[in-house]
Every structure is written in C-alpha cells, then in structure tokens.
C-alpha cells in the first residue's frame, strides 16, 4: 500500500498554510513505514502529478472554506463528497488538485482512495504563524490523518525524539 500524505496551502498567509503545518508536524512526530510518504505540496498543481501518480491512497490536508463550520473545525471528505465538491470548481484554466486527479483518472494512475482532511481557517492574513483556532484545528487534523492511516492498515509509532527539521 503506497500512501501519500500531502499538505497543501500557502504558509505565508497564516492559516492558509494549516495543511502544510499539519503534515510537517506529523512527519516529525511519527516514525512512518517507508510506504508512507509525507509531502509539503505548498500551493502547487501540476508539479504534484508525478508525486501522486501510482499511489494507492492519497490523504490531502488543506485549509477549507466552510460557511456551516467555525474556524478551527476539521472536516473529512471522501468518496462522492470529493467528486461533488470538485465538480463545482472546475475550469480548464485552473489546474489545481482536482484537475491533477482528473488527469490521473484518465491515464489510469489515480489513487484508489482519496481523502481530504480540511481545516477551517480563522485568518488568511500575511504571516507565518497559525491562529489559535487553526492551531487546534491543525492538531485535530493530525489525529484524523493518523486515524486514516490506521484505517489503511498502517501503524505509526511515535518517535522517541522528534526530528529537529526536515
């Protein structure tokens, strides 16, 4: 089972980068087996095609806009929810993750399982740190990713001493 845990977002815009912060922390805290790769995808689109291609499962952690939830909340999207949610956002000139997945689908290299873990931001202001709400959301998202990995049959051990930096 080849799994990619992909953090997305812009770390220069505070909570916009919550997904990137979450996967960075995850990678530092957990000793993951070699079949699980943790990647900071930033705000990239097509550059990620090669990384996603051929994986069995993709777990995306990203900031998510939501009217019905409050800042710091997390949400898990999978299956038809993802398709439905991408369907309203498509256009031929905006190659985002949804387009990359659609292209991989067409070429037969799309991961069989795609899960999005979303964190609702409180602030999108310029700045490198997370708001207190997104800070909580980020920690909750890490828990959701670990649960997701366990569901996929991966056991992750906590590192005895966290890795200093990438």
């Amino acid at each position, binding site marked *: 089972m080849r799994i990619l845990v992909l953090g997305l977002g812009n770390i*220069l815009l505070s909570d916009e980068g919550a997904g990137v912060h979450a996967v960075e922390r995850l990678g530092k805290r957990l000793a993951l087996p070699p079949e699980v790769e943790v990647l900071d995808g930033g705000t*990239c689109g097509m550059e990620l095609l*090669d990384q996603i291609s051929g994986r069995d499962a993709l777990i995306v952690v990203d900031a998510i806009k939501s009217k019905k939830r409050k800042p710091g909340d997390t949400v898990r999207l999978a299956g038809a929810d993802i398709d*439905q*949610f991408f369907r309203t956002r498509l*256009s031929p*000139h905006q190659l*985002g993750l949804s387009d990359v997945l659609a292209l991989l689908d067409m*070429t037969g290299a799309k991961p069989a399982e795609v899960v999005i873990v979303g964190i609702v931001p409180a602030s999108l202001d310029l*700045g490198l740190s997370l708001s207190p709400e997104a800070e909580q959301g980020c920690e909750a998202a890490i828990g959701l990713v670990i649960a997701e990995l366990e569901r996929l049959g991966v056991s992750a051990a906590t590192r005895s001493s966290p890795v200093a930096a990438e």
Partner: protein
Amino acid sequence: MSRITIDPITRIEGHLRIDCEVTEGKVAKAWSSGTMWRGIEVILKDRDPRDAWVFTQRICGVCTTVHAVTSVRAVENALGLEVPLNAQFIRNMIITAHGIHDHIVHFYHLAALDWVDIVSALKGDPEAAAKIGASLSDYAGNSVPEIRAVRDKLTKFVESGQLGPYASGYWGHPAMKLPPEINLLAATHYLQALEVQRVANQIVTILGAKSPHIQNLAVGGVANPINPESQSTLTIERLFAVKTLIDKLGDFIHNAMMTDTAAVGALYADWTQYGAGVTNYLSVPDLPLDTKGTVFELPGGHVPGDLNAFKPITSYQDAYFRDGVKEAVKHSWYDYTGNAGALHPFDGETTPNYTDFQEDGKYSWVKAPTFYDERAQVGPLANVLAMYAAGHEPTKRHLTKLIEVASSVAGSPIPLAALHSTVGRIAARTVRCAVLHEALQNQWQLLLDNISKGDFDTFNRPVFPKGEVRGFGYHEAPRGVLSHWVVIKDGKIDNYQCVVPSTWNAGPRDQNDAPGPYEASLVDNPVADPTLPLEVLRTVHSFDPCLACAVHLVDEDREPIVSVKAM
C-alpha cells in the same frame, strides 16, 4: 456597449480579474486587476538574507524554483559573491528543466483548450489524424493505435460526465476552428504531454533534492556535494540518469509541440492580427557560464518595438537594467510617501490603500512597473525577439523552422512581424521551449566536463559586512523577467522587493495612465458572444498569467468560483 467582467481568470496561480468594455463586437477598453495583496516584503524584513529564498519560493505554487534562484542571486549580487561553476551549471539545469516543464504545461494543459475543441476531437478519424501528423514530422507518438487509444479514452471520459479539466470549456464556440483530425492530434499530444512534463519535473527533483520545493540552494552556490565516488551525493551515475531524462524530452518538444504550435498558428492566422498591445519588450540574459555572471548561454535585453534597436543586457551588474526599473502605484491600491510618481525597487514601499474598484482611479493590488518610464511586455516573446536580435543561433533556427511549418500549413508565407500578437506569444513560448531543451543538454555537458577536470566546488561562503549593501538578481523565468531587489543592513534584510513577470504584464495603468500589456493587448479583440468571452481568455492566457500569490483554499460550500458577468 456591453461590459464583461471575468473574475477570477485563474485560480491556482492567483487572482486576476479582467474587465472589458465591448462596443460593436470588439473590446474598446480593458482593465486588469490583481485582487490579492502580496506582501512578501513585510515577511522578509529583518530576516537573515541567506534564508530569503526559502520564503520567496512560497510566493507562488507554479514559480517556486524561479523565486528561489532569483533570491540567492540578489543576495550574492549585494555581496559581490562569485558562484562556483558547478553551482551555476546545476542551477542552470534546474532553471531550464523547470522552464521546459512550465512551457509544456502552459501550451498543452492551460492554453491549448482555448484553441482545441476536445468534443470535436472525438469525431476525428485516427487514420486521417495520423496521416496529418506524419506529414508534419516523424514523431513516433503519432501512430494510428496510439491516436485511436486516446480517442477511446477521451470518449469514455467525456461520457462519464466527470469532465475534470475540460469542464466549462468553450466547446462548439464559433471561434473554435480546427478540423476534427487536428483537434484529435492535439488531444493525443495533450495526454502524452502529461507524461513528458513529469519527466521534466523529475530532473528538477533529482537536482533540487526535492520537489515541488527545491532544497539544494544556498547563497553562494548549491548544497549538492559533488563526489564522483560516493553514493549519497551527486554522482556520475545520477548525472547520467538525468541525461536519459533530458533525451526523453527532445522528441516530443521538437516533433510534436513545435508542429502543434505551427498548426494552431497557421489555422488561427487571424489571431496574428490581435493582441500585440505593448510592443516595447524586455528580457534578461540567463544561464551564466562564468562565476561572476558576465557571460551567458541565452542573451536578453531591451527590444523597443524594432529588432534593430535591440540593446543587450550583459551582466549581473548591468546598470542599464538596474537603473531603468520603477514601479508606479497611481492606479494600484498603495500609497507612496509624498505621492511619489514611481519608485525604484530599492526605495520601494508597500503601504496598502484599498479603495474598491475605481476604473479611473485605483483598481488593482498589482503595481505598474515601467522601464525608463515606458510600459514593457515581458515573457517568452520578449525573450525570443531579444535572442533573435542578438543573433542567437538556436533561437533563429527554431523560430525559422516554426514559421516555415506554419507557412506551409497556412499555404502562404507568415512574416516575422506576425509574432507581435496573441498567437505570436504562444509560438514564441514553444520556440523558447525548444531553445531551453538544447541549452539543458549543453549545461549538462558543461557540468560533466567541469567535474571531469577535478573541480568539485559547489559553494562559496557568504560574508555580510557591517553597514548597508544593496543588490539585485534577475532571472528570465518562464513568464518573463523576474527581479528581486534587496537592501541589507548589518547582515539583516532592510528592504526586499520582487518585481515579478506578471506585474510587468498584468499591471494596471501607470503614473501617466498608460495601460499595461494585458490591457493594451485586449483592445480591438473581437468578442462574438459577451457571455462566452473566449477571445478575451485567448489573449490573456497567451501571457500565461500568474499573479504569484496563490491562495489555495478549497470550498466546502461548493460555490462556483469563476463568474463571468456580461452587462
């Protein structure tokens, strides 16, 4: 008179809003507005200049590498720091591989859908398409089984209703003119290009140690230790793996992308009449071949409309470039101290003053750059014209070939002047892609030869003096001239300004109310149907818009994020 607002015109690359006033089926007036504030300057203030590149590569998800490279060049320039040859060659290879990747993705996956009708491609006959392909080049990917397989795949995909990147395309629009077989051939290459762009990206990953954010840069060189014997460093074996990838790119670029571009150019020859806009062109030389940045593989410079008036930019210390750049904010949501008309980036200020969209006042977060107080167009067209004017042999050869193939498809000779147009910008990007591929091969050889001489140096340690130093770095990025300007005080960043390609092209009117390249190029474009403004998109997309701010938020409420308003 009707008014079209397209907001936003791109998503992944940032927010761009275009407003057009349409009179009698033509654009009479246009406004280009960047709708997001980008304040990297604020984040970098007081930081260690050696770290700036790590932050600048986060400005944009498409241009990560280019901001990283330009940032270290700016700091090296401020310190007068030379860069070891190996480091130059490794950076050059990353730059060229990234540029190739970017140009392929733009042509096939972003711009092509403005010209190629995928639904029409489904009606194409694979055998007829293969025949046309064979008449244009001996590209191996034009076989009947290959084309048929693509048609079957596309049919299945379109029937599934999951249109993905094809959703909300302008299929069947009266401005779509390619015959089904050409559409099918282009669609075949569209899918093949997915694989090819991956190969280009793999080169960046190997050399940059990671993708999408490279890790190997340093002020003073690169962090790739070279040791021909060791397994953990850049070995000869790894270099030969890179060579295999480089060779894989060639057939596609030279035999598929070049001919596709020629065919689109020839069959949409009317688009050589539209979109010229600002014909004052600026580009910079790139791929330094020495440690100081005084000799370059690719030339660049200023083409003030006329190729004969070309003025080259010749080094990293070039005063003509350094002293010519200014940014105006009369129509941008900023204020300058004392209402200064336009400021040089070393003295640049980023003080926001949002006023709402005022078409005669302020209407954009993008500043309006000028070169010696004139608007300038940047990008592959500017670069190809400069390289052509400089007598760069590979540029002349590839451009001549492209024009020859296009002329033969069109059945009449196409003049060089046709390049000043919407279609010309697309053609120039493909020419530049072919030039970059040759340059990549050359840079690989240069690196190998230099290592073979026993030179393993990759890094010179930077030393920061007390007091103030200033520097600028430039790079001919896929979208054109990118420059970073840094003022360092006592080893810390005091001011940092990025003048990015899309600022040059997408900027609003300047201090003299002169329109920017997007705005000028849209004037007189035909608009058949204001509710489906495909023509406007063609011209704007021909610049490869990228506003370098990339908010990447997903929307759980499923609201459509693109709105086209025609009033």
